[in-house]
């Protein structure tokens, strides 16, 4: 009985399954199959010997994490600092922007502002970094202007102390506008009668925001925070590696660039993979933990089991 039911269901869903198949295949081929390569974290991998032929070494490659290798710890510290700064400073910006956009009366101006804000998202980091360099670099426009007028130059790019503020502001400039989309979508769903009713009750704009708009955003904010937490150990590879030479490894190495520099550039494939693997596992745990936390707050989070 049960099996005939199942067969019938399968028949019914066959077209849907067929539709999903290519996507699933892609996912398997390009997301899951490469995961198998992580096995080199437990091997002494030499590229020309091959993944399977390289000898097993057990947990040897993880040793550098356990003993707190200086380069690794440096990368981890930088990553955590940058993540913290980004969650505190970058995350709220699109919310504020969305609120501002939402309160705009003129649709025309709103659309123009939105377009202007979205645009930087479509520039690659290579371009963004180049633009910053051309404007603010040691031999860039600003400093050449200052020099030409006999003023003191100022060192922003190439100044290790200002690296984190620099990457943070670049990130805000590039992506804050784009990130408003989700918030705007949620805001557009808020029932306008709520605002009307609150106006009747004598609520000002601030009260409206506090009691209607922000609660409406709560779900999506928590969802995004959870996702961000899963990414806590990734703070942008391209953006940082492009600017590494200017400020040095000490200030700019993060886990992602560490994996690249140690693994591909320096040839310590296995150790770098070990670090990457640990990073992946920790990220998954963070997401699961955050999801649990969201449930405690009575939110749906990413999913409910």
């Amino acid at each position, binding site marked *: 009985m049960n099996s005939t039911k199942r067969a019938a269901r399968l028949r019914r869903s066959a077209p849907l399954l067929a539709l999903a198949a290519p996507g699933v295949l892609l996912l398997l081929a390009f997301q899951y199959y490469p995961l198998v390569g992580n096995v080199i974290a437990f091997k002494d991998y030499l590229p020309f010997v091959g993944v399977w032929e390289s000898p097993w070494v057990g947990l040897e490659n993880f040793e550098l994490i356990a003993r707190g290798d200086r380069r690794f710890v440096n990368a981890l510290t930088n990553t955590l600092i940058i993540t913290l700064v980004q969650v505190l400073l970058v995350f709220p910006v699109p919310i504020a922007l969305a609120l501002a956009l939402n309160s705009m009366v003129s649709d025309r101006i709103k659309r123009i502002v939105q377009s202007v804000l979205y645009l930087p998202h479509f520039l690659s980091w290579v371009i963004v970094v180049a633009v910053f360099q051309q404007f603010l670099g040691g031999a860039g426009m600003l*400093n050449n202007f200052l020099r030409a007028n006999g003023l003191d130059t100022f060192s922003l790019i190439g100044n290790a102390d200002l690296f984190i503020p620099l990457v943070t502001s670049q990130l805000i400039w590039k992506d804050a506008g784009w990130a408003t989309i989700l918030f705007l979508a949620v805001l557009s769903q808020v029932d306008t009668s709520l605002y009307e009713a609150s106006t009747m009750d004598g609520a000002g704009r601030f009260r409206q925001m506090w009691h209607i708009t922000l609660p409406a955003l709560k779900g999506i904010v928590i969802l995004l925070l959870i996702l961000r937490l899963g990414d806590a150990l990734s703070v942008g590879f391209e953006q940082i590696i492009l600017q*590494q*030479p200017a400020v040095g490894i000490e200030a700019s190495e993060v886990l992602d660039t560490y994996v690249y520099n140690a693994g591909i550039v320096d040839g310590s494939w296995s150790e770098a993979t070990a670090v990457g693997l640990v990073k992946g596992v920790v990220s998954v745990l963070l997401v699961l933990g955050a999801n649990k936390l969201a449930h405690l707050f009575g939110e749906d989070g990413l999913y409910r089991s």
Partner: protein
Amino acid sequence: MSAHPRHPSRRAVLTTGLGIAALAGISACSSDSDGDSSTSQGGSGGGSAAALPAYIPYEGVEADLPVQDGRTSSGFFAYPAGPATISTGTPGDGEPITAMGPTSFALPPAMDQNAFWQEMNERLGSELHITLTPGGEYDAKFATTVAGRALPDFFHVGSTQSLPQFMASEAADLTDFLSGDAIADYPGLANIPTASWQDCIFDGRIRAIPIQRGLVNLPTLFARQDLLEAAGITATPQNFEELSDISKELTGGNTWAWGSLPLAYARATVDVPSYWMIVDGTFTSTLGDERHEQALEAVRALQDAGVVNPDAASAPTSTRKDWFGAGRSIFHEDSFIAWFSLYVQHGSVPGLNIQALPVIGFDGGTGTQFVPNPNYGITAISAGSADRAETLLRVADYLAAPFGTEEYLFCKFGIDGVNFELEGSDPVPTDAASEVNIGSLYIADAARVIYAPNREAVVQAAWDQQNRVTEKSFQDPTLGLYSETASRKLASLEGALGDAELDIMLGRRPVSDWSAAVEEFNAGGGADILAEYQAAYDELQG
């Protein structure tokens, strides 16, 4: 690059790609003096004698300035008139040939817009598909290509772990074609001196072709003599302090005396041009020598005085060459051979006069010139293409045609009337000269001589410079020695040390941090490397 620059900062070089993104001024390649040159990874050394190819020098030309072993390359004042053609037929088999290599030039026009490239395909009888990567990024590109099992027919050998095993597994065995007198079938390759083939022997088998440079590989400090004279500076500085004073005079506005942090030159002035040295038969590390700190301190002082371009640490070689040509920097560290290509590249600059500075002593006198590996690197034929090895070697042989032949003229200068115009017998580059930079010279290259079209004075000056600096010079002691630990870890260790050097020169860390960085270097494997080099050296001495 087949090997690491002496004082690398490879991370610093990663972003060279930005330059390619046509956004000049950004990023990359601090590297060092020898932007073009490199030091050896060494062949395996052992059991090599039997297989070495014979040296059959091309006798169709006579040099104006003689070659002197260990002191000078040969020099030519003019290109021989009516150059002889030494090849017969087309070497290719009609099938496309793939290759990968580094480049220190801006990318050339694509094949379909590149008359030279098309003519090259025509002459070779096979289409050449070359993947070029900016030199500083080449090792990373190479590593991923190896891991992806995607090596092309010809590959310039980048940095890799366990080189002998790698070569045995991935490079075709060329011994039967090249060993001993067999190489006579390949007159271009036979014109490469034997010393250069040492690097190509792995466990007694020939598995690569050297990209020979000989003494045109010397790390060299160039100066824009025309700009020095315009500034009223005619005397050569006698010590580092004078050099530093001149630098201050030359800096102003958008011009900085230096386009790079001249650590390699500073080290030469204090007589420690290398990390390694052989003292009385003992392989020693110079890293503990306090003269390194002196050199770092000196460069740091230059940086502090604001005489180094603020973007120097992140500028790729190609950008630094541009600065030098545009007069935005007066001093330029490069490989000796760049002398001639700089003239070509900046031929339109009125009154351009490039001279090489002697290696001065820090407090006067003479410093020590570093003499690197005679090869830029080595290029191998993929084991997967071993069945085409003979064809591929013929192509390589064509590309290695000796100076004085018609083939050399074509490979280096391109097509008459397109890439160069003949003045007398000299090919003078035109605006389309950059078309020849397709990277074919990293597949195989002729044995190098000193020659610059229509610039007799430059040839004489260059030959004199070699003669002068090699008087007190110092050969890379790791030549022909192999250390397994070095092959596994040296890249990473030198990378970390290079980072420390950069941080110190830029004033981000105190000079006193150097000893800590050295300690880390030694503890992380430097000490093992030293011991292994010593053992290899002892073995070589018998």
